[in-house]
């Protein structure tokens, strides 16, 4: 018996040893120290560290921008050193890494780049320093557009970062295909019906092209959620999240209408074939193959899209911004404000555990001044959150971009719910959209399934029906 007991104990211990790696990982993360990056933080009081993401192939415009800003900053602040700390990681890994870094004073950077969809979650986690008092005394702050400010401000009015880049989404349409189909150019659809009718006209009169392209696959991830579903939903009278009650809206007429729109497109063969669209490469196929061959009538996508067609882009095509034009996405029935868009973006924030908060704030002011930010936004192809840059002809007329049109969308744009459960909810949206597009379920069934799944993830008490 004793022998058996020893066997049992050692069996458990063995299982624990081999599997221990799995169990210990979250524990050590929670223990307060991410482990890596011990080089940063805790340095001399005259050094500030700036952490940012670096991924993929160069050029890294964000690094060049921060370097230029650091140089200018060091000139004005003798004796102060700015240390850049690139985090080489994909987007998701970057979020995880900075969160772990900011948990501990020994690793927390002073300044950090934050994605606006995570900034409020990080703020409420206590990682970020509120900047309300700082921006009050900063004259440049009035130059930032209100819509963009709201992206880095929490529901209770706490400002957690200074936005430095953003984006909007709209409808790209092919001028030549529209002319062949007898559709007006410039095109200015007033409601969803106009969009569907245009797609039908293209299908009838211009055979061989895809009338309407939108991402509907789980494989295309956030693009399916943001470029397709949320562009529809935020044009109805409903949203994803009720900021007054802090609850997720899991069933609503707008949600159903959005799924029905997707059903219309895919059941009437107005969209691309499923084999084209249901894989992770669908975005590249769309922008780098189908559009340059002018095989897409209308595509719903982000303002960065023409960057692919620049001479240093993935699929150079000088005439791209002539053959395709960008127009605003209308609301469902043309209800006020008439159009809709979705925006993401990035902001510079100060870590709460930073020992150099004053210098960190001074650095953010330098990096986000007109000159430095304009250089970055033009080179990176991002929309600027500053009004004075947005009205600068140098920016508006930057070649190969739709800055002027895309910036005008910021008047009616929306941000994703700044809730830490958003990524999990977003996955459920993708599941619903894909099942409707493939015909696996009706819009009603898909919405019910979505409601069940979100209730499970966030708890039934945190959801509501409209």
């Amino acid at each position, binding site marked *: 018996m004793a022998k058996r007991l020893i066997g049992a104990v050692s069996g458990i211990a063995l299982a624990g040893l081999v599997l221990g790696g*799995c169990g210990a990982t979250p524990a050590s993360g929670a223990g307060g120290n991410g482990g890596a990056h011990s080089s940063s933080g805790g340095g001399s009081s005259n050094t500030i560290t700036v952490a940012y993401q670096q991924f993929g192939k160069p050029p890294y415009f964000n690094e060049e921008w921060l370097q230029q800003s650091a140089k200018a900053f060091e000139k004005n602040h003798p004796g102060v050193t700015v240390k850049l700390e690139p985090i080489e990681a994909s987007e998701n890994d970057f979020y995880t890494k900075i969160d772990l870094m900011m948990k501990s004073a020994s690793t927390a950077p002073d300044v950090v780049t934050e994605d606006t969809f995570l900034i409020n979650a990080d703020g409420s986690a206590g990682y970020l320093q509120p900047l309300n008092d700082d921006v009050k005394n900063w004259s440049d702050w009035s130059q930032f557009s209100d819509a963009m400010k709201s992206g880095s401000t929490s529901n209770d009015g706490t400002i957690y970062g200074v936005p430095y880049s953003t984006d909007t989404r709209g409808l790209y349409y092919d001028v030549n295909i529209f002319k062949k189909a007898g559709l007006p150019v410039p095109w200015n659809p007033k409601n969803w019906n106009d969009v569907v009718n245009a797609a039908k006209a293209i299908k009838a009169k211009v055979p061989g092209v895809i009338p309407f392209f939108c991402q509907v696959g789980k494989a295309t991830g956030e693009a399916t959620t943001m470029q397709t579903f949320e562009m529809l939903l935020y044009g109805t009278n409903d949203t994803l999240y009720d900021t007054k009650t802090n609850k997720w809206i899991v069933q609503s007429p707008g949600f159903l209408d959005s799924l029905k729109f997707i059903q219309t497109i895919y059941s009437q063969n107005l969209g691309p074939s499923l084999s084209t669209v249901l*894989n992770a490469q669908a975005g590249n196929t769309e922008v780098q193959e189908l559009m340059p061959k002018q095989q897409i009538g209308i595509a719903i996508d982000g303002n960065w899209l023409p960057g692919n067609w620049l001479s240093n882009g993935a699929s150079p095509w000088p005439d791209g911004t002539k053959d395709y034009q960008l127009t605003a996405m209308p609301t469902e029935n043309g209800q006020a404000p008439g159009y809709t868009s979705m925006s993401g973006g990035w902001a510079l924030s100060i870590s709460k555990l930073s020992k150099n908060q004053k210098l960190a704030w001074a650095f953010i002011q330098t990096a986000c001044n007109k000159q430095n930010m304009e250089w970055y936004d033009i080179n990176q192809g991002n929309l600027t959150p500053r009004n004075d840059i947005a009205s600068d002809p140098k920016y508006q007329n930057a070649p190969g971009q739709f800055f002027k049109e895309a910036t005008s969308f910021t008047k009616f744009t929306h941000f994703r719910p700044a809730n830490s*459960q958003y*990524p999990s909810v977003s996955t459920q949206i993708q599941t619903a959209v894909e099942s409707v597009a493939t015909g696996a379920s009706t819009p009603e069934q898909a919405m019910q399934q979505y409601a069940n799944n979100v209730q499970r993830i966030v708890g039934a008490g945190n959801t509501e029906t409209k």
Partner: protein
Amino acid sequence: MSNASVDVVPQPSKLKSKRGFRAGHTGWRAALFMLPSWVLLLVFFFVPILLTFYFAFTNLSLTGASSAATQFVGFRNFASMFADPTFRISVFKTIIFLIFSAVIGQQILGLLLAILMNERNRAFRSVIGVLVLAGWVTPEIVVAFIFFAFFSNTGTFDMILGWFHIKAIAWLYTFPMVSVVVANIWHGTAFSMLVYQAALGDVPKEILESAEIDGAGRFQRLFRVTLPVIKGSIATNMVLITLQTLGLFTLIYSLTGGGPGNKTETLPIYMYQQAFSDYQLGYGTAISLILLIIGIIASFVYMRMLKIEM
């Protein structure tokens, strides 16, 4: 301490004979020498495991308000886990992966290799041994890259099939589970082979010879003599590779990322995604606890099946 010595001193013989325990200086000295390893085990092994147990019952999160104020939530993580269809799929995928790559693949192939090599000459053994071992000594991440190059759309395997005019297949997309199982078998078989080589060396030649004289054939000798004798090694090997396979992350994550869809989403991948992509550390920890329990259950099932006492 003084109490203990009073109790112990009058009856030293009883303690010695009954428990084999040596009272006095030697015991303390032994404890002193063991202290460093105990401290290390405590800090780096038992504390994390206890923390894992604790965090599994909290809403610990990487970001958001629940990160600043972590709360005890009882069995909520487990309740939502069992209500989650993705979790059930994940458990199923884990078991499929375990059975095909560890139990069937590595175990049987390893035994077969060991048996076939057992009766061959030294040169043959060393050549084959080195070839098989190459898979084992290759780091997991490198194995993943090798198999990615082998299975990917324009990879080696499709190129070879092309010589026979067989149309290219996107293996990692069309047959993702088969691909990761094959990769893991390639990587892990050498371990089983080594265990069985050692075990086969211990099978007494006399018994095998007398069985042969009695008219036992090759298979009868294997099933009636060799396997019963190496039963202990089979059990040990089964437990070890099961636990290794259950916790396998790098290979699957870098080959398929758990996809396409959730076709190769085993529990470690699911746990990683919940903890670090969806920021739900508490939930992820609860999944790791389930993984631990599956490992323990599997180990005991093997013991039972092979009627072995550890």
